């Protein structure tokens, strides 16, 4: 049961919330919408669900146009960032509520609620009210309600954002398993690149109301289509800079220079953009080919096992992410080593230059 968006568009007043977008989501697939707040993830989900009407384009389900169809007639479920449950219903009644609306027989309701509660570890608290549950349990109840009704489309809008770290890890592991053997289309919105990578499946990177790239999560991470997609899909943010190619050398201002890579061979001299992930900029030289980059240290963040150093390179702020503790004083000029063989090279218009 594929979900297909054709040139879908949402304009409110003068604000374009979603630029015309095409997207095909396959049945049984786990799809991630990755982007910062206001990138349009929630709007796109609401258009998919039918909670909001597009101002242009159409939504198709299994080939049928469902653009004008009301959400209650579509067999959709949605889980929100806030824990949405009926406050005066028990957990059992909360999970059962979509089945009650569908007027299923009592025995069938009992069986299905029992099954899903087992799966989401809620069996022991079926008699409780949502207000008597922890945040994680409340969100699991909301998920159980979304899963119990065998929807064709399950939308999860940053479901883990309001949970604490430990619970987030736990549920994140469980999630893809929960959907493993279902043939519904799952869409999961998140602001965190790491979460997208851990969840796997397919990812659509979103930026200012556009889907900038869509494909298998790992492939998208390894091969960003353009600077924007690369920026969206990097945490800490990818380091970018304008460089100038002259003959067989590439220079980053007067900070650094290195031999032009294969992707630039045959390209005209001039300005290009590079993108280099933080873990390819290290405080220690790992390889003779590494390019030294010197800059003023702005911030250092030391966790138990990792160091994150923000420093100034030309006009840009770069970030280095390294294992171990590397302490720098703020304000000192540090020399870091960039592994330019892992750099992405982008044309002046932002498109990735392929080898």
């Amino acid at each position, binding site marked *: 049961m594929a979900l297909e968006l054709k040139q879908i568009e949402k304009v409110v007043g003068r604000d374009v919330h979603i630029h015309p977008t095409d997207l095909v989501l396959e049945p049984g697939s786990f799809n991630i919408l990755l982007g910062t707040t206001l990138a349009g993830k929630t709007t796109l989900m*609401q258009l998919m*669900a039918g*909670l909001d009407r597009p101002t242009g384009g159409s939504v198709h389900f299994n080939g049928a146009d469902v653009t004008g169809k009301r*959400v*209650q007639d579509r067999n*959709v*479920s*949605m889980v*929100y*960032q*806030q824990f*949405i449950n*009926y*406050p*005066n*219903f028990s957990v059992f009644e909360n999970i059962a*509520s*979509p089945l009650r*609306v*569908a007027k299923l027989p009592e025995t069938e309701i009992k069986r299905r609620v029992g099954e899903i509660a087992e799966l989401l570890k809620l069996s022991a608290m079926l008699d409780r*009210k949502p207000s*008597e549950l922890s945040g994680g349990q409340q969100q699991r109840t*909301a998920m159980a*309600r979304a899963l119990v009704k065998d929807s064709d489309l399950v939308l999860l809008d940053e479901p883990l954002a309001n949970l604490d770290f430990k619970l987030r890890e736990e549920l994140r592991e469980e999630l893809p398993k929960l959907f493993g053997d279902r043939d519904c289309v799952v869409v999961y919105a998140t602001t965190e690149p790491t979460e997208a990578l851990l969840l796997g499946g397919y990812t659509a990177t979103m930026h200012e109301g556009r889907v900038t790239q869509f494909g298998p999560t790992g492939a998208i991470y390894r091969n960003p289509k353009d600077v924007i997609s690369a920026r969206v899909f990097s945490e800490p943010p990818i380091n970018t800079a304008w460089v100038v190619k002259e003959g067989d050398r590439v220079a980053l201002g007067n900070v650094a220079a290195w031999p032009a890579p294969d992707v630039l061979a045959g390209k005209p001299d001039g300005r290009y953009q590079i993108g280099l992930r933080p873990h390819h900029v290290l405080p220690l030289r790992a390889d003779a080919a590494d390019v030294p980059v010197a800059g003023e240290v702005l911030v250092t963040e030391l966790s138990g096992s990792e160091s994150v150093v923000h420093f100034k390179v030309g006009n840009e702020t770069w970030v280095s992410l390294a294992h171990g503790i590397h302490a720098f004083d703020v304000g000192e000029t540090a020399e870091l080593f960039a592994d330019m063989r892992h750099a992405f090279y982008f044309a002046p218009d932002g498109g990735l230059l392929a080898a």
Partner: protein
Amino acid sequence: MNKQINQKAWLFVLPVFILVAFNALIPLMTVVNYSVQETFGDNVFFWSGLLWFQEVLTSERFQNALIRQLIFTFSILAIEIPLGVAIALTMPRKGPWVPVCLVLMALPLLIPWNVVGAMWNIFALPDIGLLGYTLNALGFDYNFTSQPGDAWFTLILMDVWHWTSLVVLLAYAGLVSIPDAFYQAAKIDGAGSWAIFRHIQLPKMKRVLTIAVLLRFMDSFMIYTEVSVLTGGGPGNSTTLLSIDLVKIALGQFDLGPAAAMSLIYFLIILLLSWVFYTVMMRNEDQ
């Protein structure tokens, strides 16, 4: 024991202490003082024990006033709470009309109580008042100054006009605090508007509605100014509520002892009923 006790903290408590003493404790204790004594003037007092309390509680006059008071309070609660919720539900939750609606709603609350009484008195006069004249012109025999039923009708209408806004504003505040996601989730479930009201809006409004019921209960139980200006307790004693009766006894007849005893009984009734309301409405909250 060498522990030094620091007495300076009293200095910080003292201002509140003085304030509470003057605005609550001293007046209350004066009333308690009056309620157990008998006086024939000249500031000479005799101990009378619980005599006044007995007298008040067994007097038919007090019982009738209490019954009238209960009828009045429960009538206006039964009208204002559902009506307030209904109006709040129809108010827009976003957009340019929100401030307009809020100001219109708040308007009756800004009018001084005696003005409300005077306004309605004139408004309801059968010969020159718009309401009174219209009703008579339509063929109703309406005269709130001579017919007890009409007096009650006007009284309740006035209170509903004056105070429903408060319930509306409180209920509205409860409604706008419900995130959109709740409505969307209910829509996805296919829940109808009655189910949304019953299972989302009402439970989410519970706390503010409890406050609304308590405020309206206490205020209406103590109502004096508007009734005094509108009907003065009449015709006859038909709209003599507790507070009106109390003033008649205390200031009209200058029976300080019975008036003091009645004040205390009055106060205890409000306290008791408020507690009952609160406990009943919050019953499920702390399980």
